[in-house]
């Protein structure tokens, strides 16, 4: 069953003037098109392996991730979605081409600088295993800040925690939280350091539709209310419906984009696209 996106029904937060701290010019949500992209790839090629067994995971793709927007990436399994995200986030070097976070070209950075960049400017939500089992929810949320030695801004921390609805769960360890709660902790962590971009790779892949909807709602609010930039890989048309724009990938190339999507539009676009190789939408497969 298909539900419509809930973004317009989200009650507005009482910190409307909250701006993204790092982006120089955070565009207010859902307004004019963005001047400066938060992240960008140009002619990005990523080849895994060598010789006969080599795989061209990214095949000269160029994309821009607009700041202050919620971008979804869809495509059949193996189409290079995760690879694109990893390369944009500085987790994986390109074979050729270039990627930028803001004005920083990742190709120029060494491991230490990349690490610092991830820590300071990027938030992650993975499909599973997002949290350190030894830390409480609170500690997991503040981990990126703790790694710099910073204390979280208490107001912002409270806001984020309240948004994701975890106020009474902060002392629990991941093993004491449900899958949905764990993902909400991960979202809170991705938001608490006010990164330039939050990358989420199938954040709802392991969740039931209700928990998934909650997590997606929080990502949406982060964009709407706090001007956050979010990039999300998903197989789920409903999830994609929360985004401002959907990028379609196939065989390591950008094949289509869809603005202001909802589940029906995504499904329709999907259906008319080239035969989605070996993967039905909604299938939750991960590496």
């Amino acid at each position: 069953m298909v539900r419509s996106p809930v973004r317009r029904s989200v009650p507005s937060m009482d910190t409307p003037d909250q701006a993204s701290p790092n982006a120089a010019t955070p565009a207010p949500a859902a307004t004019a098109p963005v001047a400066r992209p938060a992240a960008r790839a140009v002619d990005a090629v990523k080849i895994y392996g060598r010789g006969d067994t080599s795989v061209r995971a990214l095949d000269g793709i160029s994309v821009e991730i607009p700041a202050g927007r919620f971008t979804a990436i869809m495509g059949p399994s193996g189409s290079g979605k995760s690879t694109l995200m990893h390369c944009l986030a500085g987790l994986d070097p390109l074979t050729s081409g270039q990627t930028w976070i803001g004005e920083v070209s990742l190709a120029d950075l060494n491991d230490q600088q990349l690490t610092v960049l991830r820590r300071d400017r990027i938030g992650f939500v993975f499909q599973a295993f997002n949290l350190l089992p030894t830390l409480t929810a609170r500690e997991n949320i503040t981990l990126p800040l703790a790694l710099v030695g910073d204390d979280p801004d208490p107001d912002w921390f409270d806001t984020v925690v309240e948004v994701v609805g975890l106020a009474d769960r902060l002392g629990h360890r991941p093993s004491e939280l449900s899958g949905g709660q764990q993902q909400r902790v991960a979202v809170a962590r991705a938001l608490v350091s006010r990164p330039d971009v939050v990358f989420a790779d199938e954040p709802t892949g392991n969740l039931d539709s209700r928990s998934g909807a909650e997590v997606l709602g929080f990502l949406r609010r982060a964009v709407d209310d706090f001007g956050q930039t979010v990039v999300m890989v998903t197989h789920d048309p409903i999830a994609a419906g929360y985004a401002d724009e959907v990028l379609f990938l196939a065989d390591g190339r950008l094949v289509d984009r869809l603005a202001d999507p909802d589940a029906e539009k995504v499904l329709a676009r999907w259906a008319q696209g080239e035969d989605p190789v070996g993967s039905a939408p909604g299938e939750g497969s991960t590496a």
Partner: protein
Amino acid sequence: MLRITLTSAWQHRRRLFGTVLAVVLGTAFLVGTLVLSDTLRGSFRSVFTDVNAGISVVIRGQGGGQVGDITAQRPLVDTAILDDLHGVDGIAAAEPEIEALAQVVGADGVSIGGQGPPTLGVNWIHDPGLAPYDLVEGRAPAAPGEVAIDTETAEAGALAVGETATVRTPAPIEVEIVGLLTPKGGASAGVTITAFTADEAQQLLLGRGDRATRILLAADGGTSDEELAVRVSELLPDGVEAVTGAVYTDEALDDLGRDFLDFFEAFLLVFAAIALLVATFSIYNTFSITVAQRLRESALLRALGASRRQVLASVLLEAVITGLVASVLGLVVGIGLASGLLGALGRFGLPVEGASLVVGVRAAAAAFAVGVGVTIVASLLPAYRASRVAPLAALRDVAVDRSDQSRIRLAIGLVLLAIGGVFVTLALVVDGGALERAAIGAVAVSVGVFLLGPVTARPMTAVVAGPVQRLRGVTGALARRNAVRNPRRTASTSSALMVGVGIVTLFTVVAGSINATIEDAVDGSFGGDLIVQSGGFSGAGLSPQIVDELRDLPEVDGVLGLGLGVGSIDGQQSVFSLVDPPALEGMLDLEVVEGSVYDLPGDGIAISQSHVEEDGLRLGDVIEIQLVDGTVLEQRVAAIFVSQAADAVGTRLVPIEAYAPHATQLGYISVMVALADGVSLEQGQTAVESVAANHGSPDVFDRGAFTERAVGDVDQLLAIVYVLLALAIVIALMGITNTLSLSVHERTREIGLLRALGQTRSQLRAMVRWESVIVALFGTATGLVLGTFLGWVFVRAIAADEGFGVFAAPVGQLALVVALGALVGVLAALRPARRAARLDVLTAIATE
């Protein structure tokens, strides 16, 4: 299943490497010790057999021999027996052998040798078959005042044929060196030899011209040794016996074994055992982890029908394979170790040149039994536990293990601690048998502490890690959480170090206490202002002449010579102090309870209060002392004083005039000197040293130097012990490395996540390092507390039994031990931290 086990063992060879290494080191130490002592035994046997090859029969006094810890001398033999032997058939040669102590003084005026191996004074034996040495330069001594000495002594003393030298017997004698000799078999083992003519040797060394230590016979071609021994026996008076050369050699070897080789072997074996114990802990830990990891990995296999039994069998099989591999390597490394050490021992004059290594069945069997045994024992519990884990638990992610806060473990641990406490209390409160009770208590407490490890791991690491966390922020916090996430693993990882550090601490504390006791006892063993002591304990002693010479010095006010007598009291070999009683006055501050010590009559004896309490002796009782020469001294108790066995005068004082006529060589062990008024210590020391120079330059100490030297001996021994314990610490270190590597492997995804979230490589390395340091400090702290406690119990128990002993924990050294523990943590983390930092972030995230 066998194939699966073998392939899995092969695939995990990296993990098993640490295990193998721990076993290899332990077994190598063991094998090295056994091979070395077998080889030494073998080469001593061949040397002794060589030396005694020409001796068919030995005629000697009966009695003496080994009584308790003391080797008593046999009665001397009357040389008149030689005349009776003239007519006996089958004797090719017969010569008396005279053997006592005589120490050569080198050209620089300092006595040579005497630090352990005896300094022998002997008669020249003309028959080359009977003589234990060969003449290599010059000629045999033919007249009084002529000697032949061994080449090594000549070299050490810069003496040559034709030169004159001083020999102390212990009275200093001027001699001319006419010949040089070498012991048969080549190696001296540090024994020095001075050969006089037979007549002079009798006079100087035995004090009478008609006696010999023994008589040596060589049989002619037609008579067997046994036959000759029987034939000769018939002619011998009572109290004299004849034994074959073979028996004589065996006895000599037995003595050597008892005095040196057995001790040497046992001493090293103790440390091999400690190393193996530590190895057992670290292997146990490695197996626990690999088994746990394997269980999860092979969950599929089990779902396909592998039974618990098969899991158990496969783990044990892996242990056997590991143990076998390690044993073979241990054997090889051990043999290498032995051959290396053998070379080193050769430099101390042991007869090892050209000796081929003796790799006995004993050593090989020990290598395999211990190598495989230790590995199996260490893997049994993990294997059993693994086989009992529910299949579902195997599939679950046990990232944080809380399973082991077991109440049973807690209960047993606490009960053992209580039992230990009771025994220790009993040991210290109730009279007698303190050491036994304390030992039981110590074992109970140690096992209790070990069992409580997982329970104490959490709170203890919290204490240890507190500063780390404060200092290193989130890195410290993560390290701490990792250290306590699996308390059982933390506890067993650190227990290897706990054992090592515990033993180091125990030795440190005991040595510290011994030193404190010595310092404390200096009051009881140091009298006057200066003390003259002959260098070693196997030298010739100090001539009584020195006492007179010192007394003649204007700088000197009083002199007290202290000698040691040996005799049998109530059938027990006993030692007693020999003094000139009036000289005690004003020199040693003896607390006299009854009677008078200072005018002890010639037939009197002074005893300590302890003999009154334990043996029920009273003033006026007569004590019979049977001396080596058969005489029985009857001494009447004339004084009772307070003293301890450690004090200079011991617990029995006999006037030297009663003992002197029966002593073959009368010498003092130490001589105390009181300086005249107005003479400074430096002036006194110079004066006393000038006299001492004529007596082989024995050491002259003031009170401070005396204490220092006594304490220095203990410290030297402690240094050797530390070196031997280093192996155990290294094994413990490898155990921590191993566990950390396995943990890092287990946490690949977490590490990937942390790196993705922005943990830098150096932060990651620091995290692993601090975890290691926390675990190491936990082990160190536990070991330190346990070792100090056991040391305290040990010292107090001895004090309760023996009536003396002061407990002292050397704080500085113990602080060093803690630093060492932290260092172990840092070193152990090097490899795992590097490997963790090298993990590729993406693969780490992707790893399932």
